[in-house]
């Protein structure tokens, strides 16, 4: 361990390569099911088994999803797309090559906006997004003598999102990954599940003295199956590189794997024997032309994106950055809120209901927002009842809301009426309760008038008791004040 001062002399330069499995029904180049968790080697056909004479046929949905991601990141969409073969041998890759894109990735340029350590917006530029197929899985730990191969994953569509080396810390890498995951989930193109491997990340890391222009020796780190692990791996690599350089040694060119148990990395293979992948255009697929009409059509069918909503909530609804962040964190929540505000213009109250009441119900009961029973229009009516003074917020939150969850077919007003929870806001009726309450404590009236205004609570309590809790508190206290003055 070196002193913090020494670490502080250096900064990391980080670029991430993210593989996202696309949520298509079938595989990239065949009709086989794209399904996680099926029995091994059941989602296969002669095509994904790489049998002699088989040919790939492009999955159009995968192209649409890749274009969606490109639009969301403001990339340039490539009009003329060629596919390429990347040639190498591996037991879980039955064709002996992977069909990918080389010289014409479907998207180039673009960026993803993240927050830096100071909470300021920062654009991480993208190099490219390209389409390719996944390999199968080699399972080394289930049979003592053999490696088992499951080809269900072979041919599953992927996009690879390659960033420029714009990421300057482990925390920024963490934020970037979170943004990417949020984005693919909003777009509905990937479930973003890093534990199951539907979102995978490789990190390219080098370090340099702060202010230096040149990059240091880069290493690649693989096998980090959570966002936290990516952060940990980068933190570890940064320290490792600093320690090597401070000893006067050189960082070796390397591909490393993250050991989650130890929080460290180890060398998988030295880069000297790097593969020559012998890329060449895939002769079995026709080049794909993406027209500007097609791009517009995809754009029109895009869901609202988190960044757009975040800004809208602040600018148009006057919500705080914090509230806007919570509301847009998860697509389902944001969509619920979006629908809710179509039925109410009390944005602040709507935001609170979603952030506090709904989210805590969902958390406590492990329910997903998509399965939440109370429809936004029903909740909007409840908010309106409060705004109109027909029920108090506490009655709404503590009594009506739980019943609504159980009886989503009922209206809020019906539940309030059935249980006799409508507030008395008729001033004539309220006046009777007020007068009765004052009459009950003549001595206290004198003390109140002498200046002990704190006694108002006593009278309010009595009004509530007499009205069985239904008195509109605002109106009641106003009346009490008038009568006592």
């Amino acid at each position, binding site marked *: 361990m070196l002193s913090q001062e020494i670490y502080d002399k250096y900064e990391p330069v980080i670029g991430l390569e993210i593989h996202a499995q696309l949520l298509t029904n079938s595989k990239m180049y065949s009709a086989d099911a794209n399904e996680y968790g099926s029995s091994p080697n059941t989602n296969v056909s*002669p095509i994904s*088994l*790489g*049998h*002699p*004479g*088989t*040919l*790939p*046929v*492009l999955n159009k949905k995968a192209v649409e999803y890749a274009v969606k991601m490109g639009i969301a990141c403001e990339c340039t969409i490539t009009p003329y797309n060629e596919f390429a*073969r990347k*040639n190498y*041998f591996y*037991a879980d890759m*039955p*064709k*002996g*090559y992977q069909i990918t894109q080389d010289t014409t990735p479907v998207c180039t340029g673009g960026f993803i906006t993240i927050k830096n350590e100071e909470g300021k917006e920062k654009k991480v530029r993208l190099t490219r997004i390209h389409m390719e197929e996944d390999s199968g899985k080699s399972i080394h730990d289930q049979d003592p003598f053999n*490696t088992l191969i499951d080809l269900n994953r072979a041919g599953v569509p992927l996009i690879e999102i390659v960033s420029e080396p714009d990421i300057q810390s482990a925390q920024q890498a963490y934020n970037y990954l979170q943004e990417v995951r949020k984005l693919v989930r909003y777009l509905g193109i990937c479930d973003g599940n890093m534990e199951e491997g539907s979102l995978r990340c490789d990190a390219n890391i080098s370090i340099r003295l702060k202010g230096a222009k040149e990059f240091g020796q880069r290493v690649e780190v693989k096998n980090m199956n959570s966002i936290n692990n990516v952060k940990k791996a980068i933190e570890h690599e940064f320290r490792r590189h600093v320690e090597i350089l401070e000893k006067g040694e050189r960082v070796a060119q390397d591909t490393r794997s993250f050991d989650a148990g130890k929080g460290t990395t180890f060398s998988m293979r030295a880069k000297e024997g790097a593969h*020559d992948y*012998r*890329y*060449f255009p895939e*002769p*079995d*697929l*026709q080049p794909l032309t993406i027209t500007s009409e097609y791009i517009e059509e995809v754009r029109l069918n895009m869901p609202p994106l988190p960044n757009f909503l975040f800004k809208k909530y602040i600018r148009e609804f006057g919500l705080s950055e914090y509230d806007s962040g919570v509301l847009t964190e998860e697509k389902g929540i944001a969509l619920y809120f979006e629908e809710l505000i179509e039925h109410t213009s009390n944005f602040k109250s709507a935001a609170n209901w979603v952030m506090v009441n709904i989210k805590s119900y969902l958390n406590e009961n492990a329910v997903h927002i998509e399965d939440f029973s109370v429809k936004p229009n029903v909740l909007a009516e409840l908010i309106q009842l409060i705004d109109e003074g027909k029920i108090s917020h506490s009655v709404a939150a503590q009594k009506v809301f739980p019943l609504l969850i159980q009886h989503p077919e009922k209206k809020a007003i019906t539940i309030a009426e059935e249980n006799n929870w409508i507030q008395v806001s008729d001033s004539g009726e309220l006046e009777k309760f007020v007068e009765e309450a004052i009459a009950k404590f003549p001595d206290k009236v004198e003390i109140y008038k002498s200046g002990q205004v704190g006694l108002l609570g006593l009278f309010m309590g009595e009004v509530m008791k007499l009205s069985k809790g239904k008195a509109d508190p605002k109106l009641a206290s106003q009346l009490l004040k008038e009568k006592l003055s």
Partner: protein
Amino acid sequence: MYRSYSELKSNLSTNKTSVLQVVAHYVSQIEKNKHLNAFLEVFEDDALNRAREIDKKISQNKAGKLAGMVIGIKDNLCYKGHKVSASSKILEGFKSLYTATAVQRLLDEDAIIIGRLNCDEFAMGSSNENSAYGKVLNPINNKLVPGGSSGGSAAAVKAGLCMAALGSDTGGSIRQPASFCDIVGLKPSYGRISRYGLIAYASSFDQIGPLTNTIEDAALLLQVMAGKDEMDSTSSSKPTDDYLSFEKKKNKIAIFSSFINHSGIDHEVKNGINSILSKLEAQGHEVEAVDFPYLDYLVPTYYVLTTAEASSNLARYDGIHYGYRSENTVDMETAYKKSRTEGFGEEVKRRIMLGTFVLSSGYYDAYYSKAQKVRRLLKNTMDELFEKFDHIVIPTSPHTPFQIGQQVDDPIKMYLEDIFTVLANLSGNPAISLPVGKHSNGLPFGLQVISKNFCEREMLSFSKEIVDNFSHN
């Protein structure tokens, strides 16, 4: 027995024979001609069973267009439940899980698939001497090669072991054996027939096509097999034509002086082709000599590009998933190395090495990229030519069939066998070899017609005229 399907068809419809009898006849012919080594396997039971079914269909008037046509398929075409090996040890014992689209279309019209035919390993060769299952003999003279790579297909049709055969043509593999065996060999435009189920040699060159005794049968088989297939993205969605409606017209014919005057060409072949051209001119066709300056680039360009694709296409034969696995493996690396070393033949390994080399970083631009540019130039040149001309006429091969063993030690010389045929694969144009030449040595040679892309109907019409006028059979 029957030279063409129309003869058989009339006999079937008048009940002079049955499909069962026909199949039995061919089975016995195959048995009698085993020395030719044309068939790797006869699907006898299968064929007899189908024959019975089809006889029933004929009696019910429900039979398809090819009812009872007995067809052999090159051993690089998949047929569900049947072995397919591309004449390679590396696929020894492998059975296909599915049927190639072209074969399925034949089956759907009630053709009989009689067996699989020997060929050069992975369709790489020009003499059928590269098969892991032994060479094929030319039925015209058993000391000679039948040509390749569809040598078994050509030999079987010539010897009357089946009525027609399917072959594949990557650089002449249908046309050159057709020339050597004195039959018709048709390579359609690239994309006209689906490649789904054809074991790939070089994907952007490979085409399936028929080898037949007559133009009519070639046209009939093309009619059945041609057309878009959703399983092959490179198959063309251009509508097919009525290939059987032959139309006579006066054609504009280009001849390439550089081909005809090539130093390697046999004088009689040259004179034979020239004499036919003079007669065609006399019959009213226009014949014009055209300067085609790229002859020397054809074979090198072809071998750079096809071996590059082959090196990748053949990577799947790795000893892991199916087919041959060496017994001497200790780990994954040796499983690859030993299985592939032992499983592939010399010529296949030579081409894998060559293709791997031309794609390697540092050499890619000098070889692969440059060859792609030459190919583009050739395509453009052909497109321009066909704006002016209907057909190009050149020899199929520079000479008549050669002796078995004569060229096996000289791969370069063997590669030059393809000099007149690779052009149509580089450019994608349809081409056909017609059995109209006869040498004083008693051996045949073919005349090749190359036509405008997807103009198979015009090509077949012109071919029929040539065969009707000049056939010596």
